[in-house]
């Protein structure tokens, strides 16, 4: 939602309760809780996850927060996975929440605090700069035309029209020309190639194989997890390629036994706060060679109805549904869950899917978090 009436606690409850109901479980079945948000400064509540923990079902339970900025939504699922995989808990409820409409005059006031306070903030920074600088480096290196990025935005905004949480005014059937003509914010970043400010929450129940068998549930399985952090000296890195996403993906592929991602991954939800980011991340995920993700856009390889390609962001993603940061990462994992269960409705991809991947990204353009789900 653009602006939710619900408090962070209430948003968390709605999501957590929906996840429990969907799994046919009650709070008494939950052994542990993981809660995630991006910086507390957005919601304006210090120790935000502790504040909303009762709405996440954590009262009287082992509870843990995990946090890697924008990568937190997927990182929470990774954290929940090792709660269960360690053998310590049968179940873990993972809840992600973000209420960005609270931050005035604009959440950028908080975002900007990620820049170095001595060397960067005195220059009058804003968050868009860092994305614009990275996008320019990427499009320069591979000579990508702006139309290609507009096509990614068009795809995600169309896909988002079918999502039950789509924020009004964000999804829609935009022409390439409309997107290309949208306001230049920080060139090369334009208004319709950026995700909005949003409020929301998402949740997922993780359970051990034994619990699933005993209760006769129909799950999808977490086959691989990976995460990686690059240096925060971002001006020393070549921004055209996210090495940290590659490392996170390789870690997850190794665990899942995926030797050929382009054959073995059938649907993907890369983090897409900006149109270029989707392509950037698809390359980091090894689903396209460096510089080839844009060319595949033109072939429809990433489209929801592709029969030979890998559908990318069938949910609509951050650009087509909204970007309540940590909750948006969780939304990507839940989309893969629904796609594998064949329950995505109008968003269901055409090709057969047995394994999918969700990825998020964050901190100072330096963290990649990856989860692979399989049937």
């Amino acid at each position, binding site marked *: 939602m*653009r602006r939710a009436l619900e408090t962070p606690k209430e948003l968390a409850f709605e999501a957590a309760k929906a996840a429990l109901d969907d799994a046919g479980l009650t709070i008494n079945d939950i052994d542990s809780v993981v809660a995630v948000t991006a910086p507390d400064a957005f919601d304006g509540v210090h120790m935000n996850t502790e504040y909303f923990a009762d709405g996440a079902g954590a009262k009287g339970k082992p509870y843990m927060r995990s946090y890697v900025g924008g990568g937190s939504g997927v990182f929470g699922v990774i954290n929940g996975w090792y709660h269960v995989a360690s053998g310590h808990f049968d179940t873990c409820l993972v809840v992600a929440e973000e209420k960005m409409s609270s931050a005035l005059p604009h959440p*950028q006031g908080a975002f900007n605090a990620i820049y170095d306070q001595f060397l960067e903030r005195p220059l009058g920074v804003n968050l868009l700069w860092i994305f614009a*600088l990275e996008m320019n480096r990427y499009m320069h290196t591979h000579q990508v035309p702006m139309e290609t990025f507009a096509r990614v935005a068009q795809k995600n905004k169309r896909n988002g029209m079918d999502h039950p949480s789509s924020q009004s005014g964000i999804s829609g059937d935009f022409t390439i020309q409309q997107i290309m003509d949208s306001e230049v914010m920080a060139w090369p970043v334009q208004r319709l190639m950026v995700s909005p400010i949003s409020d929301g929450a998402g949740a997922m129940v993780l359970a051990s194989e034994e619990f699933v068998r005993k209760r006769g549930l129909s799950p999808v399985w977490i086959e691989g997890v990976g995460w990686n952090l690059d240096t925060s000296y971002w*001006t020393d890195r070549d921004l055209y390629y996210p090495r940290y996403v590659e490392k996170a993906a390789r870690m997850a592929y190794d665990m899942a036994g995926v030797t050929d991602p382009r054959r073995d991954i059938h649907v993907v939800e890369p983090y897409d706060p900006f149109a270029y980011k989707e392509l950037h991340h698809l390359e980091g995920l090894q689903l396209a060679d460096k510089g080839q993700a844009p060319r595949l856009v033109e072939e429809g390889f990433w489209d929801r109805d592709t029969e030979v390609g890998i559908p990318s962001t069938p949910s609509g993603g951050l650009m087509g549904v909204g970007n309540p940061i940590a909750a948006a990462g969780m939304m990507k994992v839940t989309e893969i869950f629904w796609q594998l269960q064949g329950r995505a409705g109008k968003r269901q991809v055409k090709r057969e899917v047995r394994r999918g991947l969700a990825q998020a990204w964050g901190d100072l353009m330096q963290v990649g978090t990856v989860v692979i789900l399989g049937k």
Partner: protein
Amino acid sequence: MEPFAGTSLTDQALTQGEVLATQWRVKADYAWDTGVAVGRFMAGLKEGKILGVQCSECNRTLIPPRAFCELCFRPINRWVELRDTGVINTFSVSFVNWDATRREIPEVPAVIEIDAASPGMGILHLLGEVGDNLDSVLAKVSIGKKVQAVWKPSEEREGSITDIRYFKLID
């Protein structure tokens, strides 16, 4: 799928008092010590010099300066004076202020690879004298072009990254 739970509010609902809201401003100001490496770098700027550091293990010449090499994980003790010229690694033309208000005359932030540092080592700064609208900036500026620092006069320098007003194109 049915739409999920949640109550979306309009701007009007909030500003016209249809729904209740409270406001809060955090009373928090910060005073950061620059630390050892950045402190010395700032002192160099005051003298009109761009300083870097060198790791004795991997021999990389690094900027921004730091007290340790994050690759070799060793302390760094060697300082070197770099040039005040460099190459545009990437740039943007920004029409947005930090509070999301629009600006008429764009700012041109850039990552500048500083000459005499190891390849790819850069800092964030602004480009100047490059035009005051998108077309004029894009006509002049491109990745790979050479730039040089434009310093404030020495009596105005205070040991800050803004002692360099901006970088301008050379050649």
